[in-house]
């Protein structure tokens, strides 16, 4: 009876989560499935870490560490939650540790580094003028500073809510807190961002 219940729980998660199914195949020795997961989640993980850390080199390094830990954990993987919950829990943990370890770095140094950030949604056959590029850079710099000024957990919650489109319950599992705590984090974060960025309409 218990085994059947456990099987149903496990089967239920993988039925709703194809990524968990892929990870189970990795557990069983299918290396190609790891490649599929990497293809799907590489960009979101790197971008999340970059927006948290705002340093391309560190973000890539941490992203590699995330996938390395996923791979090394393959033998004991159990789909107790969505794969992306587990994935972003690892990423958030590494990002928060990195931020705390690098606290001696001046935030201004990190923000002033030459950024490889791209203008978004350029029309293919037109290039931005110098003025447009300058306006873009100024707005981008303001956005980056506003996000960087958020406390780390608020920052993580906003990034997952906005860019990963995660629901409150999933963010709560990633941050290991209650759903009401997530709502509080997001309320305060967006309130701060509205105060800093609303003039950019």
């Amino acid at each position, binding site marked *: 009876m218990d085994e059947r219940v456990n099987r149903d729980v496990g089967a239920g998660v993988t039925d709703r989560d194809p990524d968990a199914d892929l990870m189970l195949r990795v557990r069983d020795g299918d290396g190609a499935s790891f490649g599929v997961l990497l293809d799907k989640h*590489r960009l979101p993980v*790197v971008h999340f870490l970059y927006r948290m850390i705002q340093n391309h080199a560190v973000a890539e390094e941490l992203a*590699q560490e995330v996938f390395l830990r996923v791979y090394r954990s393959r033998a004991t993987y159990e789909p107790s939650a969505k794969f992306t919950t587990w994935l972003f829990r690892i990423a958030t943990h590494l990002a928060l540790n990195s931020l705390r370890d690098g606290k001696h770095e001046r935030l201004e140094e990190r923000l002033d580094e030459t*950024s490889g950030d791209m*203008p*978004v949604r350029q029309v293919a056959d037109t290039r931005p003028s110098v003025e447009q590029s300058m306006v873009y850079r100024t707005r981008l710099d303001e956005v980056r500073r506003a996000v960087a000024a958020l406390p780390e957990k608020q920052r993580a919650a906003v990034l997952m809510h906005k860019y990963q489109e995660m629901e409150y319950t999933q963010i709560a599992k990633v941050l290991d807190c209650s759903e009401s705590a997530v709502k509080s984090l*997001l309320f305060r974060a967006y309130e701060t961002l509205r105060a800093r960025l609303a003039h950019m309409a």
Partner: protein
Amino acid sequence: MKCPLEAKGDEVLLAYSSRKLDAADVPTLEGHLENCPACRGFVQAQRTVWNVLDVWEPAPVPADFDRRLYQRIDRHVSWIDRLLGPFQGLGLGRAVPIAASAGLVLMAGLMIQRTPAPQPQPQHDTAQMEALQPEQVVLALDEMEALSQLSRPVHADSKM
């Protein structure tokens, strides 16, 4: 409809601002927004934040990201992974005792290899013995000659 801001239900306004509010709830909220400047201002400001955040597009991931990752995976497969590799499918409950036994066998082998080798005699003792031996031979020969002279018979007509 009760004002979401007064009811501290700004998640409704957040969802509406990002166009994720349930379609069934939209007409009711929009009716309220027509009459509530505070909520209208909230939505306008939140949509600005949303649009501005959309501007932030990080640089593409380098083309060699995967190659470097797989190199790291190869480097960081630990000796534990190599030891447990054949037992991956067994599950931790059976792999650990087997791995522990393998570890004990390994340790036993290392200990057996450490039996001390026979120690050679110290060099200086050997040299001394080699040096003494010729002298002892000469002494022995002298003694033999002396003994041989003493053992010769004394004849009567030997002249003195």
